């Protein structure tokens, strides 16, 4: 999960032109001023990084980086099995 967070926060920070240290698991996307396109872009970049296709998600169910990454992490674990 730590590695996923590192990769995801680096991607999102680059997209939003902010310092990765501004992103924590508790940070809400709203606080980061990230819109749905930003989040979808991050998810697509993660898909490229991990060579997987995450399931279609309802982003409103994941208001923070932590909640979204937890769902993606669970999928990655399932995919490994």
């Amino acid at each position, binding site marked *: 999960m730590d590695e996923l967070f590192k990769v995801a926060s680096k991607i999102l920070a680059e997209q939003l*032109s902010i310092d990765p240290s501004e992103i924590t698991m508790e940070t809400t996307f709203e606080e980061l*001023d990230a*819109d*749905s*396109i930003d989040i*979808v*872009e991050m*998810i*697509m970049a993660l898909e490229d990084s991990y060579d997987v296709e995450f399931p*279609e*998600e*309802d*982003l409103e169910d994941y208001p923070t980086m932590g909640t979204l990454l937890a769902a993606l992490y669970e999928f990655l674990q399932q995919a490994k099995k």
Partner: protein
Amino acid sequence: MKIAIDVMGGDFAPGEIIAGACKWAEQPGCHAILVGKEAIIKQELGNFDPEKLTIINADEVIQMDESVLALRKKKKASIAVATKLVHDKTADAVLSCGSTAAQMASALFILGRFNGIDRPPIVASIPGPEGKNTLLIDVGANVDCKPAQMLQFAVLGKSYAAAVMGRDNPVIGLLNNGSEETKGNALALEAYSLLKNEKILNFIGNIEGRDLFGGSCDVVVCDGFTGNIVLKALEGLGLYLGRAMVQETGKVPAVLHRFDYSNVGGAPLLGVEGVSIVCHGSSKRDAVFSGLNTACDCVTRDIVNMQKEALKLIAVD
């Protein structure tokens, strides 16, 4: 010239979209790639010359009221499939009368964007004195904008005005509710500050709605929410004046045709790695026909590379 047409998008899809595409494809050198539900397309086509077009099946459609997230859920949507054809160089351009959000997201995710550009805006040409039109940017791709994005719109507008319209050192204005620097909402105030401090821009400050037609600016920047309202208000005004003139004089003066969107048909998304033409949701065959000719013009003028060349000189951060 091959253009991929999302025939499932729009209030009058697929019938009017296909009719406009067929009319366009009758021109020499034009080939329409109709993207949508194949069975429906075949039914609509009737006896049209099959050599003038290709049908590519796409089973899904993104509805006007769906968000950009629909693109992830509907990977076989007609707009996504049509945009992919441009990415793969099968088509020279894509045109859609469907969801602008879905088209913008398709362009962003499938075609890709230029370095330093967060969101592609739509640029429209506003009639001006002696044929000197003014570009209004953004007219609807981004309803919620950040100040930095407004700066990017200005840079893209500058490059487009210089590259495509031949304007030397284009004059940039910010659409606002007053000309003074202190006027406007938080977005306008912050955008003003960014535009003023960007040395590569020939920024003359705020301009008001009435100044759009005066020819004082080559490019007027606004957020997509405001720009779309302005554009549609102009179209509505044109229609109203046309009706009033018919009642009073029995004819429509030629100048009002400049406000008829069906004569232009569509407007390009800027800042993306391909030509993507956004059309009105309410487009009928004539507007689709004009939009396809606008797409041809954009391809012929090589707007993608011309923007990129102009941006190299500007070097967006």
